[in-house]
């Protein structure tokens, strides 16, 4: 076979393979959309489940949002603070490289192990019990490395010239960081937070072990009470649902889950753009 023909064939083969990913995505999303859209109606979105398989998923929606709320309250300050330290203060020594190493370690822990840890430490050892607090904190542990990484990268991209200019004006290091560095790094930090939120909202195993069994049909009561959540509810419906309806509801809930994720992405994108524009304006 002439080399040219061979080349053409192989290239065609490669492009076909590459398209597989697109096709798969298409199929999956389409399938979920088609099967789930039937279940979406106002009652579905705004009511509570009734005898587990009927009614709506409102508590699950609110529950998921509350869980990410707690998760972010933990992971954002801690992650940002760690990133600031690593990027601006940390000397080049063993302690610093250990910190970096352990951040990477944490990123590599399988989510089910984080769930087990949450169970052993938060639920039992600290006695917080299966609750929104346990679930949120466990999720926070899981996404901490992502907030640290993204924030650190964002901070490192800020040009050194800005820091020098600020310091030369007699501004202290921390104030320089707060007023110049962080303001410039803000978009990148938002991206990291977004990434974390996306991971957290779809996470099932951790939540299943620490926040609720999926049988909850009430709105979030308090930090110490179990809480309903979308992914766990989908899991329950899929594995224990008996009515033909159950599956369609599972798909409906999945759609809502994906929709929330998309909404978070869009909101954060808008925030980023608005912020970038604001930087050009004064007072």
């Amino acid at each position, binding site marked *: 076979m002439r080399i040219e023909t061979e080349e053409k064939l192989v290239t065609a083969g490669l492009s076909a393979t590459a398209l597989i990913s697109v096709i798969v995505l298409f199929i999956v999303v389409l399938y979920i959309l088609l099967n789930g859209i039937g279940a979406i109606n106002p009652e579905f979105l705004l009511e509570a489940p009734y005898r587990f398989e009927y009614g709506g998923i409102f508590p699950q929606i609110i529950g998921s949002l509350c869980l990410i709320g707690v998760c972010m309250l933990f992971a954002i300050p801690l992650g940002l603070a760690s990133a600031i330290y690593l990027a601006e203060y940390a000397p080049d020594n063993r302690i610093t490289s250990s910190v970096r190493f352990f951040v990477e370690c944490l990123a590599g822990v*399988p989510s089910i192990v984080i769930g087990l840890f949450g169970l052993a430490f938060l639920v039992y050892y600290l006695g917080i019990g299966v609750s929104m607090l346990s679930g949120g904190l466990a999720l926070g542990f899981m996404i901490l490395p992502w907030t640290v990484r993204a924030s650190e990268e964002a901070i490192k991209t800020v040009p050194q010239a800005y820091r020098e200019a600020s310091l030369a004006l007699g501004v202290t290091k921390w104030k320089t960081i707060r007023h110049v560095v962080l303001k410039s790094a803000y978009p990148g930090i938002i991206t990291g937070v977004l990434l974390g939120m996306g991971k957290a909202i779809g996470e099932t195993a951790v939540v299943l072990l620490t926040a609720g069994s999926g049988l909850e049909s009430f709105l979030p009561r308090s930090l110490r009470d179990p809480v309903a959540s979308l992914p766990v509810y989908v899991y329950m419906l899929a594995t224990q649902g008996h009515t033909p309806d159950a599956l369609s509801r599972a798909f409906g809930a999945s759609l809502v889950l994906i929709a929330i994720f998309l909404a978070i992405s869009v909101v954060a994108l808008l925030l980023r753009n608005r912020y970038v524009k604001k930087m050009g304006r004064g007072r």
Partner: protein
Amino acid sequence: MGAQEQIPRSRFMTLNESALEWLIEKVLFACALSSILIVLFIIIFILKEGFPALALGTEFFFGMTWWPSRGLFGIVPTVVSTFIVGIGALGIAALVGIPTAIYLAEFAPEWMRNIIKPSVEMLVGIPSIVLGLFGLMVLVVAIRDNIGGYGECILAGWLILAVMTLPHVISISEDSIRAVPKTYKEASLGLGATPLQTIRKVILPYAKSGILASLMLGMGNAIGETMAVLMVIGNPNIPGIPTSVLDSVRVLTSTIVIEHAYVDWGSMHQHALFALGIVLFFVVATLNVITTAIIRKSMRKTT
């Protein structure tokens, strides 16, 4: 000079300022240490809870039967199944992912890249439970109707996990291929080699370690994946060593999730589940270490 004279210059304030600066640095340092603390706590608690089961020794590590109600906690079938599922999924992901990466890096026109790359990235955004649901409804049924068996089997696990690992394999492999210095490519083409030959003989060998690293990472992801695989592989009550791809099996992750609701806290069963977690953690950690070693070795080669 007018308004400018109003900038306060009190000495007292600056003394407080430097104390504040010092304090802030210490607080930030403490926050940075949190990651270390969390990982250490994870290790401590998982070990603490899993140890009694590990202490069962050969009964645990080499036992062939996992039957908690009879007090049997042998993990061999589960571990074997985990590896079979993981390696198979990785194989498929590699088969599809590496050519895709090559295509994206070397051949794809701009508009195609703009379609394929975001699609691949979006796959990552789909929650694993949703993919699992899809797998249960579509893959399992398809296998049951067209090939045989219950449908919930290793094959389904392979396919679903492959879909989940694909994005990582593609993006890291593509980066590695792009990282090959242009000069090598140009030298090869300048000597009259075709693009394909250049890829086979120059680019791939150079990008080998990056691609390998992506595979190791992918394997770690596949083995650590919980929900998607749980929904499609069957999880029989008493797991055995599979003999065909149509067998239903259990893996480490699915066992933990399924059984955690039934254990009494403090029972050996509970300890055994944690011990499974230890084994899982260990395997994934080893894969990560290998990945890092591969990356480091390749860096040394090129610098």
